[in-house]
């Protein structure tokens, strides 16, 4: 008794839990959200059907395009630096042995396990305009104190810095796993052929670690496009218009201004941006080195 149909049924039974969860918890809410973009619904409750009005508004909304620009700026400041620094630190950690290696790795990884609220408190305290310890250093090198998270020019780079400090541990970990997969034989053989450190990196490490790099870049891109928590917390009380990013704009429209329909429209636009950008990026990265 071995029929194709029966096999299919069993297979279906095994994938059903996932498929059902996916349909109910992801696809259905997504469809509802898209429907929401055509209504003037408040945050909670039903709204009237208003056709494409929300989209017309979106394309005429200066604040929205500012948010897109700020998000892009933040992505630029974090994605590539976070990935490359992760690789550099991973190679440095990889050269250590035994306890020293564990210790150094732990030092890089520790910030990553902190919740965002703690990260916020730490940096708020360090950077406090009146009492922060970093202000003494700023005073000495820059010449004056700067309320870094509230200053038009300082805020974004500083938040990018905090983000890298906070999340780089995870990238280091991924890269170390990748580096350990590269056989020592290749380095030994190349050394016999007279390759120096740089050449070893250029022709062995870089191409062989590339799949990990591409993965980290993609994860980073998606993550940083969705930037919200640390930026929201750290810029509270400043001119938030200067640093308003897309998710924050969604929050503002939906939760503060009670415009669920328009908030959903902005959210949907972010969804589309993330899908398009990450697919493009992954395709582009796949085609590169080797």
């Amino acid at each position, binding site marked *: 008794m071995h029929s194709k149909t029966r096999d299919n049924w069993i297979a279906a039974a095994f994938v059903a839990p996932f498929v059902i969860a996916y349909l109910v918890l992801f696809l259905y809410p997504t469809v509802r959200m898209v429907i929401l973009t055509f209504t003037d619904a408040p945050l*909670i409750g039903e709204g009237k059907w208003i056709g494409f009005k929300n989209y017309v508004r979106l394309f005429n909304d200066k604040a929205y395009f500012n948010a897109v620009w700020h998000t892009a700026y933040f992505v630029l400041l974090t994605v590539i630096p976070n990935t490359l620094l992760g690789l550099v630190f991973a190679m440095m950690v990889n050269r250590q042995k035994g306890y020293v290696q564990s210790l150094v790795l732990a030092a890089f990884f520790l910030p990553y396990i902190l919740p965002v609220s703690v990260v916020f408190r730490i940096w708020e305290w360090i950077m406090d305009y*009146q009492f922060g310890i970093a202000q003494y250093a700023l005073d000495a090198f820059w010449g004056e104190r700067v309320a870094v998270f509230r200053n*038009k020019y300082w805020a974004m780079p500083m938040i990018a810095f905090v983000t890298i400090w906070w999340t780089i541990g995870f990238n280091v970990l991924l890269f170390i796993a990748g580096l350990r997969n590269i056989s020592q034989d290749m380095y030994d053989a190349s050394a016999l052929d007279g390759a120096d450190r740089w050449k070893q990196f250029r022709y062995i490490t870089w191409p062989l670690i590339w799949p990990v790099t591409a993965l980290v870049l993609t994860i980073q891109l998606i993550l940083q496009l969705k930037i919200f928590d640390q930026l929201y917390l750290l810029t509270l*009380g*400043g001119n*938030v218009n200067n640093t308003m990013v897309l998710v924050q704009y969604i929050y*503002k429209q939906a939760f503060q*201004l009670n415009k669920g329909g328009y908030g959903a429209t902005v959210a949907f636009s972010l969804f589309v941006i993330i899908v398009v950008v990450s697919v493009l990026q992954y395709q582009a990265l796949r085609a590169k080195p080797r």
Partner: protein
Amino acid sequence: MKVAGGQVLLGDLRRDEKRRNRKMRKLMTKALATAALLALTVGAQAKETVVWWDFLSGGDGVRMKALIDEFNKTNPDIEIQATTLEWGVPFYTKVQTSAAVGEGPDVMTYHLSRLPLGVDTGALREITADEMKAAGIDGANYAPANWQAAQVDGKQYAVPFDIHSIVLFYNKDALKKADLLGEDGKPKGFDGIENFDAALKKLKDSGSEYGMSFQTAGDGGVWRVFYSLFNQQGGEFYKDGKFLDGDNVDKAAKAAGAMAKWVADGVVPKQTDYNPSIALFTSGKAATLMNGVWEVPTMADLAKQGKLGFEWGAVQIPTLFDQPATWADSHAFAIPDRKGKEISPEKLKAVLAVIKWMNEHSISWANAGHIPAYLPVTQTEAFKTMEPNATYSSLAETAVFDPASKLAGVASPVYEASANNITTTVNGDMDPQEGAEGLRDELQGLLD
């Protein structure tokens, strides 16, 4: 075979008996447990629990907890189960979302300034005249403006609990050194913007690091001072669907400009968060502090522990422009409109009893610096001699509440727009006129 069969039968019987016994015992246990459970439920029914949410921390929180404990002790048939949540946006967002799905407390604290917004988002339940009458809550016991602020379109949505405002805390020792302390122990020579500026300068010159401190970073601190100075010029923030209409925008610019000048002159600290702004005063670095009456307990407690290191006082905000006016708000009690899980009549009775009791005992709340909303308490000897409340309670007569708009109130779009434009102006990153117009345009843009 027979014998054997009989033995089998006997064995079966015995086993049956055992099983029956076990069954019996199980049944008894179940019955007992049910009885115990029933007894418990009956006990709980006799005692009505009221789930309470507030956003009161610091000195406020301590005093409110004492009030709740006292209530629970003296009212055996009602028990308040209190939770304190984070003040501001987090509190109000949670209230709104939980009410919409039928969750949330039975009663909560609410800022009257935010009432229009709360009603607009459907978070609040109306309290009808009959319900209040049955509970013995009478509007005549409250100041008319205060009572009306608890209404939207003539419907009552809250019961006021206090009026709180900003005052000028001052360091008597520092003022004396700068010759700015009168015979009566109150500041002198602070009225009028020129005098005020000169006084702050004098304080700085006589050894204080700053003449005055207030929260110059963020929304609340700047908004309260700004709105006071704006109203001292007789400005109208919102009228007939227009924000800062006509020359009101110039008055706003003037208020913001005066504040920016303090920061630019170095007599008020730049970019200072809420807690550091208080620390600058309590550590003696700033001679005065413009902040809410809710910080009175902070000063009183520090002074009592001998940690302040100077004599302190608090007075009504001086009149810097044409007329006295001080920003004010009101803590009130409100009932969330829990969709699909409306409050039961018995619970409502208990909630209103709690509200009534709290107002009648608000003398210990006045201890936290506030002015009780319940007039009979303000007429008691105990309140009239309570310091420093008695010194500044005159501010209630010229208090100005936030504009009655669904965009206004604590942690509202008005606060955010003020942070974006006025706070930026105060810290010198924007020109006053530009800041005032930015505030107007941002808020007007949200209306359409």
